[in-house]
């Protein structure tokens, strides 16, 4: 409950974004064959992000990213790498679906999203929705691809 209160405080949410922007987590690529990767360069004219993930037996063991991007792209992707690491792909898909709902201004389950709720107002600046989703779309595609290749 206490945690939830913190995540309702605009000052805290702002700090979360700034922190992840200045000190992005999991911010280097290992480029090993154990990882699947997605280069999100054509999603917009500016942001150029690569996300890679190591998925084994339906578990996301590691997620990393690198690239040039704005605060929203960088912070949302950094938060995503923390949130989804260690999750099963099924859990991740539910979190991703909730995240996309939130970013579109729809209903979502805040408990699942943890720090990612910092992006809850981005939908009010429609031009930035693609920033808030670039890394998330990358991991979404990676998960689908891993499921297809196993299925």
């Amino acid at each position, binding site marked *: 409950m206490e945690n939830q209160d913190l995540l309702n405080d*605009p*000052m805290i*949410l*702002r700090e979360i*974004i*700034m922190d992840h*922007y*200045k000190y992005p987590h999991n911010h280097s690529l290992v480029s090993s064959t154990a990882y699947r990767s997605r280069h999100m360069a054509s999603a917009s*004219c*500016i942001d*150029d992000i690569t996300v890679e993930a190591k998925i084994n037996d339906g578990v996301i063991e590691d997620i990393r990213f690198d690239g*040039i*991007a*704005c*605060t*929203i792209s*960088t912070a949302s992707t950094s938060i995503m790498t923390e949130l989804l690491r260690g999750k099963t792909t099924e859990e991740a898909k539910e979190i991703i679906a909730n995240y996309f709902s939130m970013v579109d201004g729809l209903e979502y389950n805040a408990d699942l999203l943890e720090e990612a709720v910092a*992006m809850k*107002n*981005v939908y*009010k*600046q429609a*031009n*930035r929705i693609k*920033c808030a989703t670039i890394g998330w779309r990358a991991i979404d595609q990676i998960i689908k691809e891993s499921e297809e290749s196993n299925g």
Partner: protein
Amino acid sequence: MLDIAAIRKDFPMFENNPDLIYFDNGASTLKPKPVIDAVVDFYARHTSNVHRGDYPIARLNDELYDGTRDIFARFLNCSPQEVAFTHNVSASMNEIIFGAAKAFMNPGDVILTTQNEHASNIMPWFKVQRDFGVKVEYIPTDVQGVVSVEDFEKAMHDGVRAVCVAQQTNVLAAVQPVKEMARIAHEHGALMIVDGAQSVPHMKTDVKDLDIDFLGFSGHKMCGPGGTGVLWGRYELLEKIDPMIYGGDMNARFYADGKMLLQEPPMKFEYGTPNIEGVIGLGAAAEYLMKIGMDNIHAYEKELGDYFRGRMKEIDTITLYNPDSTAGVVTFNVKDVFAQDTANFLATKGIAVRSGNHCAKILDGIIGTNSTVRASLYFYNTFEEVDRFVEAVKEVTLENAVSIFF
């Protein structure tokens, strides 16, 4: 001097958006009433196709549409038969580049350009390089994107068949010495091709004085309607190049055996039903600009630009990428703030600017950054707007840029 207050009254956008500071003129410009009226009149009073009707309204549109060539003949100091209408400068440059490559170049021939160019002026060359074996080489520039005549002379050699640059580049507003470059290009038997998208709206363009061979520009960046562009070329060169697109209007005859007889230039470049109302509106835009005077526009924008640069230099968190530009364009970043975050913060203050790489994706080789904020002025912008802009920029910090989301 220009009466800016009176000029602003010509632009309904200002009345309808009293708090807007529109500094995104490099992307597109606002439209004055004579242009809006010309387009609306076409819809409300004299709609028809062109070049195919025998009734009075159709003849009126023929006169207005083809008459716009006469307006541009005065605007550019050329013959009306050298003015072809396209849909934008991208279309003009593609038409010129593919046409010239096919007509005048062989595999191994070199074209010289810069790393400053907009996608529209370089991607067609990459395609020509890939398909026809023409080689793209770069003229070095300084860190503000400017080509010096000496560097150009050094880059020039007898394998060069064409030189192709923007007269004013879109990100840094580097103004290139096109007239000298044309002279040197011609001494080596090369063509001089110019992307005028950012120069033609802001300075007098005399194609005879510049002595260039081809020029393209967009209508929407010079107070004209969207979906209009101009392709200018020396008549004898327009005769030699093939159009890219075939169809109605541009042909004179065609036969069952596949023989085609095209119209003479400029008509052979105008396929299908054109943007008639757009071209008529573009004529009104050119008349409007000539009435104010291109030299007056240029002088005012330089003065306003110099003032703007001076004020931006006062702010120590600012990196200016084109401090010596002579145009009304200021390209910058705020320390530690990503360009798009700056632009979005400024938007909350009613300011419109462009951020990103501005479609010049190999420019980072020159300025060492991928992403910048570009504030681009036009003759209707004011010193007061610059002051308000500078005050807003002073507020740009990472914290404030993120705060707009809460």
